[in-house]
């Protein structure tokens, strides 16, 4: 299993209701359904990915992340997942507010723009960062938001989201020290509900 999927897998308890926003080909939801008996629902914009989801028995709505969120009732899922999809979203605050309205908790996985390799590439070579977590050239990237791990933590504090857990990932293993410098990706488990914090 992908390292980030393993982190999310460990967080989610069996039988939970999970909404995966930007679920891609449905790999995570398929594993969660098969091994943890979760009730899963995906949202995905790419048509080819929809076919891959359906092959795996994953239920998925063909849509962008932002437009259809308002239809989901309050707290109708235990978890909403935004793994590697938030950086492609225009209205970050709105999407996170919605994710935490629909889900009791949200899982947010982001690529770290302040990783050492990004800094070296920018500082010494004067080039736009490219890292394993941000693999696209400036002209081809689908990403429109660039954040660091510290940025996201600050954002959560300002918005009043409680960070319940955070895991930082390198290429092959978890990063324990100075994640803002050494982690390629950060995964946060957040909530708005005080009683869950």
């Amino acid at each position: 299993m992908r390292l980030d999927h393993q982190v999310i897998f460990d967080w989610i308890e069996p039988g939970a209701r999970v909404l995966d926003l930007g679920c891609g080909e449905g790999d995570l939801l398929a594993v969660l359904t098969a091994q943890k008996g979760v009730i899963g629902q995906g949202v995905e914009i790419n048509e080819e990915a929809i076919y891959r989801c359906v092959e795996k028995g994953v239920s998925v709505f063909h849509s962008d992340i932002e437009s259809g969120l308002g239809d989901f009732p309050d707290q109708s899922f235990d978890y909403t997942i935004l793994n590697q999809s938030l950086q492609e979203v225009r209205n970050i605050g709105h999407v996170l507010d919605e994710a935490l309205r629909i889900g009791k908790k949200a899982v947010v996985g982001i690529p770290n723009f302040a990783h050492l390799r990004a800094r070296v590439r920018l500082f010494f070579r004067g080039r736009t960062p490219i890292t394993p977590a941000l693999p696209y050239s400036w002209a081809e990237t689908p990403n429109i938001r660039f954040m660091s791990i510290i940025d996201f933590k600050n954002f959560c504090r300002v918005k009043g989201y409680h960070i319940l857990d955070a895991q930082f990932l390198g290429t092959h293993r978890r990063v324990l020290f100075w994640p803002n410098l050494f982690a390629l990706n950060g995964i946060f488990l957040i909530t708005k509900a005080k009683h869950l914090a």
Partner: protein
Amino acid sequence: MKKKDEQKWIVKTQFFEFAHPPRELVLECGRKLGPIRIAYETYGTLNEKRNNAVLVCHAFSGNAHVAGYHSPEDKQPGWWDSMVGPGKGIDTNRYFVICSNVLGGCSGSTGPSSINPKTGKPYGLDFPIVTIRDMVEAQRHLIDFLGIPRLLSVVGGSMGGMQVLQWVASYPDRVRSAIPIATTLKHSPQQIAFDEVGRQAVMADPNWRMGDYYGHKPPERGLALARMIGHITYMSDRSMEEKFSRRLKENKYSFSFGTDFEVEGYLKYRGDNFVKRFDANSYLYITKAMDYFDLSGDKLFPHGLTVKTRFLVIAFKSDWLYPAYQSHEIVRLLKMRGVDATYCEINSTYGHDAFLLEIEEESHLIRHFLEKTQEIADKEDSGCV
């Protein structure tokens, strides 16, 4: 019922009769109708648990003959032969597939061209107005007769999709999954308008004679015109460009009102063919049934009901007769009610016709969706849930 005859798969239309007086079917309009005959075909075998039955609902001008051939000499297979059959999207090796001609139709089921037992003559306009709900009610009697407690799935495009939605509204406990394709929760004013223009074309034909044309020359001109209009709405601007462009039948303009362009010839051909197989009064009744269709608000899922039916909703990008936004309305309800559902908007240029043409993508979705549904059904029926 079926046997392999070389490559041709031979199927036979069967008939089911119910609602014999005095136990007539009470219709949505309040009038009673009976006896009612329903033409249907079945494919594959009902399993022991009776949980592998798939009901296919046909679109406006369809019939019970969804797949296979009626005879070895038959040139035309059923209307969705590319989807239904052994190893196909709706795999008849796995599922027991049923398709019936709608109530009010003219392909074997009771409709305005049937004999009214009270007069011994065709009903004509004495036939009561039927609705999509009445059509589903008739299908439900057939499903009871076939001994199926709960359908694995109800599938259909366009008006077939309305019947799918109506099944969920009328009998939520008897539908394990629903596949509404290129359809809507309610007919929009634009859809009603096109239907009305078609009806006016039929009724303006002097041969229509207030629907009492049986035994006389039928209103072929009016019906053909209605069908021509219909066919324009089934295609997209782009698919018409690709299919016809401005190509001419002859190499030069005739400078007359004859058929210059290929598109004109195509529409004329479609219209002329249609009148050979379709009853003009059925055209009026069935379009009216579609226009009355409205499951918006909480009519699809009554308030407070936990929806257990799984959904696969399919729309097509270039369909402007049943645009994707109408499928979004269905999806919106599914989200609001927490229904286990999949929605796919297939990137097609064929317009509304796509639901009969984009077979590869549709088959892929339907095959895997049905497999998953069967898996759930088997689990539930063996009591391991």
